[in-house]
């Protein structure tokens, strides 16, 4: 039972345009969401997060939007740069104590120069 889903395995975007990565979740107990970025042969690195008390969080070129009623979140990258080419994982957890992260299957983003 995949509680966190990333339905697009891959996405290609022109450099300078907006990249939009999507994530859906099924567990209504999740109230803290994170995006991780992963380059080949490296570990995932934390990118941005959002608590369920917000619907938007912005950090530079990266913005995460949360739609709780739809159980959907998205990551917007604008403008997209070649260095953004990586696999992006969505993750979710209960924002309480030592709750573990549940990850999606990842989306491979390719930025076309």
């Amino acid at each position, binding site marked *: 039972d995949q509680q966190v889903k990333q339905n697009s395995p891959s996405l290609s975007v022109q450099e300078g345009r907006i990249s939009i990565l999507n994530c859906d979740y099924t567990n209504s107990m999740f109230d803290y969401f994170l995006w991780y970025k992963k380059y080949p*042969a*490296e*570990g*995932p690195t934390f990118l941005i997060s959002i608590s369920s008390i917000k619907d938007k969080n912005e950090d530079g070129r990266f913005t995460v939007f949360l739609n709780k009623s739809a159980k959907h979140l998205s990551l917007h990258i604008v403008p997209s740069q070649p260095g953004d080419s990586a696999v992006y*994982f969505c993750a979710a*957890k209960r*924002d309480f104590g030592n*709750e573990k992260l549940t*990850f999606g299957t990842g989306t491979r983003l390719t930025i076309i120069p």
Partner: protein
Amino acid sequence: DAGITQSPRHKVTETGTPVTLRCHQTENHRYMYWYRQDPGHGLRLIHYSYGVKDTDKGEVSDGYSVSRSKTEDFLLTLESATSSQTSVYFCAISDIKDSIKSAEAFFGQGTRLTVV
């Protein structure tokens, strides 16, 4: 970057042999995790630890055991390696940000394990 070191980085082993992977942290974080990454599955939690000698199972714990005798070290053992355990293994750490909330997890560089 969080101080997390995984060893070895690469290993090839034969079916049926025991294998131990090591995760070492210098951040004094309370929580440590072992994940595996496989195509089509993302990252799946194997085992985790919430303190010295305190460990619990994740979603894919069969065939794996862990030990944590010191805050800085978390060992993952494949008791009798099988080809289905060929994967990339990641260690992660986290800690409590305030009294009730845990911060984001930080990952090591990964260990690529091949079971032949």
